[in-house]
């Protein structure tokens, strides 16, 4: 399964049933409150029953994913970052050694080829920080490989279309 997760509406037509497109800005997703209920009370399920609970199962299932996010201070901006924080039910509380570091055990999470389209007017320094962030994410989010594409907000639509066109159905 392929997933496109965007922090703003994209004008793309997707006929392929293999591809799930989610516009996070149209959903109601509040921030994680760090209760760890998804690990110790209702394992695999967030106790906050808003739209995030419909999104993280797709994050888990996808083997190819495209994240589209504005960047602020070298971080995913609020909409995407809020969703990524809410995705911890797809991991277990338990820790393993992975790539020589301690990380959580994943539940039924497919290994991923990830593409991250980071948009906005980023300085050189901000790009370096964002790259480091995605490199750290790759250990925690089961990325097998990843590719980061920086683009301006104006060129976003075209950049997304180019990337999706590369996906072989």
């Amino acid at each position, binding site marked *: 399964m392929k997933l496109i997760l965007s922090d703003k509406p994209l004008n793309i037509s997707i006929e392929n049933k293999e591809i799930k497109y989610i516009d996070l800005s149209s959903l109601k997703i509040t*921030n*994680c*409150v*760090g*209760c*760890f209920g998804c*690990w*110790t*009370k209702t*394992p*695999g*399920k967030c106790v906050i029953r808003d739209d995030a*609970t419909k999104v*993280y*199962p797709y994050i*888990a299932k996808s083997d190819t994913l495209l994240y589209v996010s504005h960047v*602020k*201070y*070298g*971080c*995913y*901006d*609020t909409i995407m*970052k*809020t969703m*990524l*924080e809410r*995705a*911890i*039910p*797809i991991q*277990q*509380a*338990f*820790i*393993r*050694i992975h790539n020589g*570091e*301690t*990380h959580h*055990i994943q*539940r*039924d*999470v497919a290994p991923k080829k990830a593409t991250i389209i980071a948009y906005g007017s980023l300085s050189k*320094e*901000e790009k370096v*920080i964002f790259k*480091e*962030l995605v490199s*750290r*994410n790759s250990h*925690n989010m089961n990325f097998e490989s990843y590719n980061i594409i920086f683009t301006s907000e104006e060129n976003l639509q075209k950049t997304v279309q180019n990337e999706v066109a590369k996906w072989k159905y």
Partner: protein
Amino acid sequence: MEVLILNASPRAPKSNSKKYASIFSKYCKVKTSYHNISKTNHLEICSYFENYSDVLLVFPLYADAIPVTLLNFFKTLEKNPPENKPTVSVLINCGFIEHYQNDVAIKMVKLFCKENSFKFGSVLKIGSGEAILETPFKILAVNKIKKLSKSITNKKYAEFKVTMPLTKNMFVKASTSYWISLGNKNSITKEQMETMKIEDK
């Protein structure tokens, strides 16, 4: 001189950050005042910046970065810049044993400071921060927090780090028992916690 301590944990009232902050206050030689950053008090907290020479941000690592709570506060602070710009220091903790997993989040705070003309001060990065205060290694964390506070009050800003002095394998074992006991408090077994199902599927 006074230090404004801001807790940017999304669970501030019940957070490890709160415990770290209270240790900081206990050993800090100058007066400190403490506030949680909530969703609704950003402007109030921005106004406090006028009265302090130093701010200490205390927060957890969330998804390899600063938590949304801090990100959103920074965005408000950027739009409502105080005339007085205190020096910003950081006390960050993360769950994993490697304290360096906090480094990217610290760079984000430094970038915020640079873009908004705040001076960056000291930093203490804590690994195994979810549990270290409940172990005999608490003293190691306390010692580093003392050093952090001294560096801020003396304006000799520096970087400190601490984690449990365990091998990674020992840490994995200890953390497994820790999480099992938290599950047990909710009558959830280890096997239930190990489910591979997500949303029951």
